[in-house]
């Protein structure tokens, strides 16, 4: 085994794997954000709060209704997605003709409301949520002990991310969505209800956030602050990847997770800022992000 700067290859690979796991969350969340921005041109600041709500729905399902994790994976995105649909239908749709900054401010306000309400009800010490029995324990890989649940998170999020990318880039529905963003009037003229499509797309993006929340619940505490803690980072990920690019967000999410992981090894104090430094550099060189289309 080799050593780099005093870190053994064992420790390094362990950290890379951890980084990949974190990257999976970043990818899933930024995927939702990218879908929403790409299709709707809305900067969804509420994304973090909705991720938090997704986790809370899972928690509530378990603690109030005795419904377990596997069901929560399905129910929570649907419930939270429905909330997203309501938000889009009654609030965001009114702002469609205005500057995008208004959308940003509205969703920022909504994020505050959600966080405030949940903090009021649940405090902020965090609530425990155990991983399902089938996924507890782990495997000893030699260079680290990999909890089964985390392995599941990586694989599941990869599937979801790639599935979504495929659906948007390579199916008919996806092409309608993309066309509607380019030229809504024309698409409407073809008889497609653009308004409804936008609403459902927002709901879908929100559902993705909620799904990430359910995945996150057993790893982090279910905590009203979990949204605001992560939203700024995910924002940066989307911006680096390129605001409209689905694939860009997925790749950047995983890559930045790894970058963060490496920073944790060599210079831990900076690990929460490295993403912003990268974002600033990328924006200065390529203002629309690494994979973004120029607007």
């Amino acid at each position, binding site marked *: 085994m080799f050593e780099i700067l005093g870190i053994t290859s064992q420790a390094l690979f362990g950290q890379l794997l951890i980084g990949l796991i974190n990257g999976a969350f970043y990818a899933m969340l930024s995927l939702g954000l990218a879908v929403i921005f790409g299709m709707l041109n809305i*900067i969804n600041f509420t994304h973090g709060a909705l991720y938090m709500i997704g986790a809370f729905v899972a928690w509530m399902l378990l603690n109030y209704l005795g419904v377990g994790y596997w069901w929560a994976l399905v129910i929570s995105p649907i419930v939270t997605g429905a909330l997203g649909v309501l938000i889009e239908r009654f*609030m965001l749709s*009114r*702002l469609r*003709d*205005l*500057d*995008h*900054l*208004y959308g*940003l*401010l*509205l969703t*920022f*306000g*909504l*994020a*505050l*409301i*959600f*966080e*405030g*309400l949940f*903090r*009021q009800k649940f405090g902020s010490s965090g609530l425990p949520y155990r991983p399902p029995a089938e996924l507890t324990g782990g495997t000893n890989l030699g260079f680290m002990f990999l909890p089964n649940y985390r392995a599941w998170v990586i694989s599941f999020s990869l599937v979801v991310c790639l599935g979504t990318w495929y659906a948007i880039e390579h199916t008919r529905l996806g092409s309608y969505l993309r066309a509607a963003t380019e030229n809504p009037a024309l698409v409407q003229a073809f008889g497609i209800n653009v308004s409804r499509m936008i609403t459902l797309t927002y709901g879908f993006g929100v559902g993705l956030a909620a799904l990430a929340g359910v995945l996150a619940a057993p790893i982090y505490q279910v905590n009203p602050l979990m949204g*605001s803690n992560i939203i*700024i980072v995910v*924002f*940066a990920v989307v*911006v680096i990847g390129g*605001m409209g690019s689905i694939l860009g967000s997925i790749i950047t999410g995983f890559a930045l997770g790894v970058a963060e992981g490496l920073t944790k090894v060599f210079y831990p*104090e*900076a690990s*929460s*800022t490295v993403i*912003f*430094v990268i*974002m*600033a550099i990328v*924006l*200065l060189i390529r*203002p*629309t992000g690494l994979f973004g289309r120029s607007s």
Partner: protein
Amino acid sequence: MSTQPVSHSEASPVNGTTSVVPFIALAVCLIIGPSLIYPVFLMKALCFALFACAFNILLGFTGLLSFGHAAFLGMASYSSAHAAKVWGLTPELAIAFGTLVAMALGAVIGMLTIRSRGIYFANITLAFAQMVFFFCLQAKFTGGEDGIQSVPRGSLFGLISLKSDMAMYVFVAVVFFVAFVMIHRIIHSPFGQVLRAVRENEARAISLGYKAEQYKLAAFILSATLAGLAGSIKALVFQLASLTDVTWQMSGEVVLMTLLGGVGTIFGPAVGAFVIVSMENYLAELGSWVLVVQGAIFVLCVMTFRRGIVGTASYYWNKRQQG
């Protein structure tokens, strides 16, 4: 190209013949204020009012939404606190130092960000603000989570002690009034007119021969400097400088104040600041409801109240004048 993000400044005519009445009213309010309201609370409101007015130069009059203005408030706050406490500078020098630091920071960040627009501008200012936050967290002189405490208020010019809240209040009120009038003069100067032209239609302004980017940069630096002035004063009023002043939540709060008060109006941000500071004060016992109320105000302002308090008031006032 997107529609105008901000409402027009319907409050005052563009050619600078504004009525003096609102300013006299402001002066009167400042004078009788402390006899009705607790001076320390008033000072806090004035600091934030100045911060919001400074921010509005950029948002309301130049059309740029910066999501990282807390960097200037906080960095100036730390700098002036350090100058007063560790170097023992008299208050006016400490404040001047803090303001200069904010100006320098504004110049650096401005030069790096001014080429971006819209959302990208908001994002990149946020990124830089996060880096300033990180710096403040790590740097020894800021005291990390503890902040810089026990900052002495000292004696103004070495002669007038600012220890009593009333003395400090008079100083703060005077500085605020002067800065406020200055902002008003700048907005109604030819420079301010170019800014507004850039806000309305940058391409046209450039085609008319104006170097839009330079104007935007100047507005950015001005906005940062005045935000720094607010921060420097705040450090002496409360005798401490803390990390709250550099968080992105603080950047969000100044947006809220400006939006609520009325983007693109002169008095709006100050009014918005007063309302928000009061609300936080009186609702403090209700815990997280403060967040909910702030969020609700954001939502309401964006959905139905885009002109803000002062904007709406002046809109209806003007309508009455005309009709």
